[in-house]
């Protein structure tokens, strides 16, 4: 997952440099520890640079979730807000950092949906998320659509 994210940062910087620069500016100086299932990595941001690192100094923000939660958010079965409110996705840190993280995430997604090379990256991300997803989503069933209630 960390490798995919690093690849996506590169694609964003190459294909939509303005969005990449804005994301880096919004998250400048922030450090985020990400735990998705058993995987753990760090995000670091500086002007014009977004890095994914396997180790490093302590982060001010911790983001903790599972691949299945990410799959549900990507497929709109679960909104980001509900994921946070129900602790399916935990984010811990000072409020200004959390707000910056949200702004940076929105900028990243706006860039991602415009980058020509993101559709195959998204397909790979979905595949990785589904590796851990229980078979709770029968095709055509309630859980397989994109509905938010």
């Amino acid at each position, binding site marked *: 997952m960390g490798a995919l994210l690093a690849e996506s940062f590169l694609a964003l910087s190459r*294909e*939509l440099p*303005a*969005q990449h620069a804005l994301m880096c500016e919004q998250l400048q100086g922030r450090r985020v520890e990400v735990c998705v299932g058993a995987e753990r990595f760090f995000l670091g941001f500086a002007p014009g640079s977004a890095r994914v690192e396997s180790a490093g100094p302590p982060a001010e923000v911790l983001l903790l979730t599972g691949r299945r939660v990410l799959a549900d*958010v*990507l*497929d*709109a*079965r679960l*909104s*980001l*807000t509900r994921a946070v409110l129900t602790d399916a996705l935990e984010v811990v840190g000072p409020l200004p950092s959390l707000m910056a993280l949200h702004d940076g995430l*929105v*900028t990243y*997604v*706006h*860039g991602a*949906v*415009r*980058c*020509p090379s993101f*559709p*195959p990256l*998204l397909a790979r991300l979905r595949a990785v998320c589904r590796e851990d997803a229980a078979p709770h989503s029968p*095709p*055509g*069933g309630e859980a*397989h*659509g*994109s*509905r*938010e*209630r």
Partner: protein
Amino acid sequence: MRRQDSHGGLLTDLAELLPRLDYFRRSPARLGGRGGHKEWQYFLVNAGAVHLLINFSLQDDPWAADARRAEVARLTLLALGEEWQGGLERFPEAEVHVSPGCIDARFGASTLRFEQGRYLLDVSLREHSLAAELELVPMMRPLLFNNHPLAPGENLSWVVVPRLEARGTVTLGGRTHRVEGAPAYHDHNWGHFRWGGDFSWEWAHALPSDAAHPWSAVFVRMMDRRRTRVRYQSLFLWRSGGPVRTFRDRDIRLLHQGHFQPARRLTVPPEMALLAPGLACDLPAHMELAATSGADSFHFRFDAEELARVITPGESEPRTVSVLNELSGRVVSHGCIGGEPFELEATGIYELIRD
């Protein structure tokens, strides 16, 4: 040699006419011409228990590195039973074959062809248990609108076939529904414009449960993006094969009533829900349209029931989206054209653009 048909030669005429009007244009950018081209072939089928929306779309990706290879193929396939289901899928160049000048497209395993006066659709989604194999026979003469202005320097052309007769199968969630003589609608749009440009539209159409009902109506209203100014609006009526009446601009009064508050809604592609979260929406619960001109009159009431949203990144500004709201609901309509009164109860789609 002309085939004999039971509609006074209408089907034969349509079989000859439609390939000359409804063919895929494709982007001039492929040949070094103007980019920003968009085109889609859209079908609605009232298949009884399931309503189907099918859209074969080609549009130039404004962020593509090579403008000559910027055209992106997307298939939207939505089914409305008790609620909307389905998805939007895009296809890599290697899986797309579209013949310019013909009604002939292959997007992955899904195909659209026009043969012997019939549209042949064989569509399926990779990620959902939703598929359809349909033959649609046009039953009314089309209208063609060329280069209608959307915004300064932006335009849209349109072929509309308001009534077709569908037969075949729709498979949803592992259950196959037989379709026989079902009413259907088709249009084809193409032009140069940017999502998020200075325009928005409202469009409405209704498909009666009785395919033999002789009347068909299409409404379209074009506005500026903020919806403070109506640039033009039209209501087109067909009866038994041909167009019979058009109401325009000041002939038409449109009233939005109430505020639609959906209990649920479908978003395609689903990841776009990250940029347009929540259930709040700026949509009317009811729409009432009245048109009068001379002795002719038409009244149309739409009551919203279910919502599907097709969301596209805004192309004018970096942090915007354009939302095509496909609002389904009940339609009750009546009118009197040329001294002939009529009534219609139907299931309708009301499409509204919102940012």
